């Protein structure tokens, strides 16, 4: 029996469909809209069509991300923190630390040798160093997102970006451009700042082994390189780092679909089915 995981992030909604042996059968990415129930319902249909399956083949649907409670088709809703931990463990079992940098959130999750989450940190009240931050900067610089991870790699003298506030950093970037700084140097400076913030968040935890770097930010090659240089452990980037949360949600979905089950909100109030169930 297959499972579905849907991660409703602040910017994008990601969906995966995995086989019993946890192989990826289908995936989808769409910008998150205000109509989360409709969006996720359509996404589920798309995933099924792509995999050539029907609802009868699905044993469970898990939702995660900021919009997790609004996914009507899901059987269970879990936080993105748990989902990323389980997703990373699925892709790289020896993982001891997960760093997830998405649209508005940065999270670091510490895991023990059995793959159990033991601690975590998140950014709070500030989106500095997240996807939105680089989005703003890419607009200010006129550098497209795909280029953001490559253009600065040859920079010999990355600009030093002092401000961590998105708005202030943007004006710093604008004045750097006005002073005639090269785009490569400025982009390199921004990527360095982002990597540094993630590394310092991670270092408040005990890093004892392999690091899985997930979330959309992990597609920025320069940030990955810089993060590697700052952490003493191996940094593993999955093939589709932005799908890790959705994978985790699929793993956390209950094993058997309950016929006409209640809405996920109702079950979340009393989390009777522990996440550990997924291991069995």
């Amino acid at each position, binding site marked *: 029996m297959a499972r579905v995981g849907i991660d409703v992030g602040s910017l994008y909604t990601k969906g995966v469909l995995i086989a019993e042996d946890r192989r990826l059968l289908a995936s989808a990415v769409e910008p998150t809209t205000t109509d989360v129930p409709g969006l996720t319902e359509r996404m589920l249909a798309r995933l099924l069509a792509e995999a050539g399956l029907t609802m009868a083949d699905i044993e469970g649907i898990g939702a995660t991300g*900021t919009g997790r409670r609004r996914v009507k088709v899901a059987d269970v809703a*879990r*936080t*993105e*923190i*748990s989902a990323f931990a389980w997703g990373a463990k699925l892709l790289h079992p020896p993982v001891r630390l997960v760093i997830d940098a998405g649209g508005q959130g940065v999270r670091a999750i510490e895991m023990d040798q*059995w793959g*159990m*989450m*033991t*601690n*975590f940190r*998140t950014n*709070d*009240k500030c989106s500095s160093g997240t996807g939105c931050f680089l989005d703003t900067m890419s607009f200010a610089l006129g550098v497209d997102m795909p280029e953001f991870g490559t253009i600065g790699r040859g920079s010999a003298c990355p600009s030093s970006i002092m401000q961590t506030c998105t708005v202030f950093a943007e004006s710093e970037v604008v004045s750097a451009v006005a002073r005639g700084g090269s785009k490569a140097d400025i982009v390199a400076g921004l990527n360095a700042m982002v990597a540094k913030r993630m590394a310092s968040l991670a270092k408040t935890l*005990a890093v004892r082994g392999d690091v899985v770097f997930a979330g959309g930010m992990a597609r920025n090659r320069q940030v990955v390189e810089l993060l590697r240089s700052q952490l003493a452990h191996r940094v593993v980037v999955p093939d589709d780092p932005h799908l890790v949360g959705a994978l985790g949600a699929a793993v956390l979905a209950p094993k058997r679909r309950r016929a006409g089950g209640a809405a996920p909100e109702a079950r*979340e*109030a*009393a*989390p*009777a089915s*522990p*996440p*550990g*169930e997924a291991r069995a």
Partner: protein
Amino acid sequence: MTEHPLGWAPKGRYVRPQGDESVEELKARVREAYAKQSGEMRARLMAVKDRPEGMRYFDDVARYDGPRVKELQDAKGRGRKVVGTLCVFAPAEVVRACGAEVVRLCSGMHYGVHPANELLGDAGLCPCVKSTLGGRLSDADAFMTLADIVVAPASCDGKVKLGEMLEDWLPVIMMNLPRVKTGDTTAQLWVEEVMWMGQQLGRLTGTEMTVKGLREAIGVYNRAHLALSRLTQLRWGDRSPIWGRDALLAAQMALVDDVERWTKRMDGLCDELGRRAAAGQWVGTGEEARILLAGSPVIWPNWKVPNLVEESGGLIVVDELCTGARVLGDPVVADEGTLRDLVRAVAERYFFPCTCPCFSPNDERESRMLRLVKEHRVEGVVYHALRGCHLGMLEATRLELALRRADVPMLKVESEYDEGDVEQIRTRVEAFVEMIQARREFARG
């Protein structure tokens, strides 16, 4: 104009000009916001099913425009004085022995922060200090308006300056609280400070502290302490007959209520909870993560974090807050003796057992926390840190490291009084609970 018995005169530094229309407007606006916030919070607690009947009384006390305010107004009409306190260190026994009413002024009202921000700008102060000041600036805090005098122990920087600023409106007895606990002279200094405070209050009320009066007051508060420890014991077991946020509310109302009546009502609540426990009537499903709530003061109606914990699959089984379990920390041990002996006993009870982060060394906080974790079989600690509470924030790291060595996870929640970050915090609290439950499952095999 007759001189104030303590020689106090309004300083006129921050007071807005009288008759300024905007003052009245502000007062109305803040009062309305106060009523709305505490009303919403009460409704949220009252909506929880199978709530003990005995909680109704404490709900009423928590209406800061309710019967307790009226009662204090009447007492003032009879010439009684109302003493407002700013910290857990102000010895209530001494106030009572001087024939005055005592209420805690620290505010948990979100809207009170705004008038203080308008005056101070973003001074990096914690919302507790700002809201308390805002209650005075806007003339909207009922207890603050009723107070004849403030007793302000110089605990943290914010409270020191708050006490100083309040002198514009009413006399303030600033108590020099020693912040270094070691050394021969510290406790001695504190005893002198408490003695002096009693003398000042005596001059204000015209009732001097006597051996008989103080011993009676100690007896009254010791009975209150016993009632609170009964409540704690009722929450000891694997299942609890009361939600932690209700227990916290009931305990906290001791700060503003008439303490003898509070004790009676607390005993009544405990009787009811005892019957519930005997009948196997518990709250929750039994699968909740057992949480210890620690950190900066959680002051009604800022019930944001307790609500989030218990709405996300957690059960607060115990707390170490100066607005909760530490309100009536330990009973005063005093037998026969002179007035000075009794004052010393009271002063020491407020000084030594207190583990406020303003103290150094504060090793006891760590060992007490670990003891509570063990006794109450705590699975995780939620550390509530008010933004701007530097002392609380600094100690959070130390406690987290100590707890980590004991294999107990801690979640630090940094927050203010506004509701803007509720959903972000909810995600983190939910993840924390998921983590604890996954660990529990794993341990079960």
